[in-house]
């Protein structure tokens, strides 16, 4: 791998990281608007308000960057970066196309991806603590509790796929993927996607940022660009979660003509899942904090264990 | 790579953790220092495993076990800390000394005359500081 190749791959990751979350954000504006029977932002950019997110970004950049007087300045300022960067690192390991269509194939890819995604939550925790605001602290505590609860089913369902494929590497999993894995790993897919939603604190699992109870949770005190970075982290999280789910459970680049247009299939599956994430936000009410915990421990963990047992049985019998 | 690098790093990390365990007063800080010491040991295990090219990979297997046990230890440890905090309103190890020998909280003045003194802290279940044990020296 020469220098040019490395540069090109890093540029591709950066580009994907800059564009895809914005795309998801704009889709969210529009999809939510239409599902709620309104048109949404229509003015910016002329055609259907396509430049709304750019305008939002400009607005955020112009705002004053306020750090509360009682806050722990350095931790407060560092938190958005800690929340955002892990998702960028994860993109490096996600395969988009067959035969080397991945920026860097990592031997223990599943471990890498899940480990690094877990680090991102530290950003919310840091912000929640450093704001010196009781609502932020409550939000941070809820974030931590939610992470601890949902990390387990997420790992277990990913482990099921790794068992089925006999490898931990993401390209390796796609290499042996067959269509009948879809029904076989269905429970795992649902568990993984749900747990991922909860880790991202997306509705209906947004108790950590429940505006009717604790204002905006860990992000209450943030303004301007730093707040925008947290929002960007959320959208990047949606992209990463959808891409991961499609790679692990939906076959990634598999599809007709995968050899030439494999990356289109990956993007398509990711896009459909991201649409589903937005759809869920519009259609389901927020779970109460105790319901969030109960769902993880009494439903998702047993289901994930069931999936692992099923995978094991099929694997041994075949 | 020279084996001395990881070995020295592990030794120094261990000593940093040792200092933390002895010098810290908040229980959770002590737990963090214990984690540092465990990590130093793990680093040693991995380095020696890679050096020896052990066919059984005993070092790496043991490292994985240590990591798992450390996670369990933190879980139980924090549960205990939170329980103590709920009952006493403090997570300060220097003040959690109800079960010590009855030397008397007034310092080492009289070992025999401390019957009442040993009872006093036992009834001190409220969150307040209570009678401040003499061992609490502010550095």
């Amino acid at each position, binding site marked *: 791998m020469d220098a040019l190749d490395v540069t090109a791959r890093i540029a591709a990751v950066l580009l994907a990281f800059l564009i895809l979350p914005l795309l998801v954000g704009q889709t969210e504006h529009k999809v939510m608007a239409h599902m709620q029977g309104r048109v949404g932002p229509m003015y910016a950019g002329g055609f259907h308000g396509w430049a709304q997110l750019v305008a939002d970004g400009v607005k955020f950049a112009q705002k004053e960057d306020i750090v509360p007087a009682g806050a722990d300045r350095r931790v407060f300022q560092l938190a958005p970066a800690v929340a955002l960067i892990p998702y960028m690192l994860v993109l490096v390991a996600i395969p988009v196309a067959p035969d080397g269509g991945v920026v860097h194939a990592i031997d223990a890819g599943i471990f890498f991806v899940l480990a690094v995604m877990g680090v991102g939550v530290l950003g919310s*925790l840091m912000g929640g603590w450093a704001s*010196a605001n009781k609502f932020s602290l409550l939000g941070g505590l809820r974030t931590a509790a939610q992470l601890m609860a949902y990390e387990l089913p997420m790992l277990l369902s990913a482990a099921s796929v790794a068992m089925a494929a006999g490898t931990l590497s993401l390209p390796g999993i796609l290499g042996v993927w067959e269509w009948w894995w879809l029904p076989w790993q269905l429970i795992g897919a649902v568990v993984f996607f749900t747990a991922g939603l909860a880790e991202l604190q997306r509705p209906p699992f947004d108790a950590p940022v429940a505006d009717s109870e604790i204002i905006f949770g860990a992000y209450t005190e943030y303004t301007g660009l730093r707040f925008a970075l947290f929002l960007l982290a959320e959208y990047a999280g949606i992209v990463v979660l959808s891409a991961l789910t499609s790679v692990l459970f939906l076959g990634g680049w598999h599809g007709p003509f995968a050899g030439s247009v494999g990356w289109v299939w990956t993007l398509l599956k990711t896009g459909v899942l991201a649409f589903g994430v937005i759809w869920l936000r519009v259609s389901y009410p927020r779970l109460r904090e105790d319901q969030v915990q109960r769902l993880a421990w009494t439903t998702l963990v047993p289901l994930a264990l069931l999936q692992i047992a099923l995978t094991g049985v099929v694997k041994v019998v075949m | *790579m020279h084996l001395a690098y990881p070995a020295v790093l592990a030794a*120094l990390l*261990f000593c940093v953790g040792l200092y933390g365990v002895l010098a*810290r007063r908040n229980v959770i800080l002590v737990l963090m220092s214990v984690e540092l010491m465990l990590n130093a040991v793990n680093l040693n295990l991995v380095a020696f495993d890679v050096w020896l090219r052990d066919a059984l990979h005993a070092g790496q297997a043991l490292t994985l076990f240590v*990591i798992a046990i450390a996670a369990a230890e933190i879980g139980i440890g*924090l549960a205990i800390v939170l329980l103590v905090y709920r009952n006493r309103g403090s997570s300060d190890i220097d003040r959690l000394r109800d079960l010590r020998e009855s030397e008397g909280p007034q310092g080492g003045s009289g070992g025999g005359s401390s019957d009442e003194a040993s009872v006093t802290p036992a009834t001190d279940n409220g969150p307040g500081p209570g009678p401040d044990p003499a061992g*609490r020296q*502010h550095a």
Partner: protein
Amino acid sequence: MNLAAGHPGFLSPTGVEIVFVLVGLATLGAALVTVTTKRLVHAALWLVAALGGVAVEYLLLTAEFIAWVQVLIYVGSVVVLLLFGLMLTKAPIVPPITRDDPSYAEVRAQATADADSGNRWIALAVALAAAATLVTVVVDAFRSTWIDLDESVAGSAKVTGVALFRHWVLPFEALSVLLLAALVGAIVLSKRRKGGER
């Protein structure tokens, strides 16, 4: 410390060694701040840096699998648990006063007293003595030992998995029982009895 004088191998370090020493220094620095800082949550965050540094050292030693496990378990779970504990035991959320406030020094002294106990100097002496002894012995024993990192990856997922499930199955199962016991223990400990506070 790293320059055992006279040994030629130390004067012409390889690239991996240079990176290892630099990351090691960063790790050590983060660990030092962890055990000395007055702010409890800062200690936890510096611990993240130290543990991440150790993970990088594992990568440099070609123990990939353990490196990712380290990030997953320690950085992702243990530190989050520690932060959780710090927040629940009301770690002082930054003294809510500014530097020019007259009570600033008092608040700072209180933070110091909360973090460090009186036997700090004894602890320092013990730690320094231990460090001196250990480093002397280790350098003396291994000054000419060479780890060959080139021949193969020592800790890929496959290698570790084979070792774990072929030779270490029984300890592995015993460990699962221990984890179950820890789980049950944590639940029992943190469960309130009916009819008021325990």
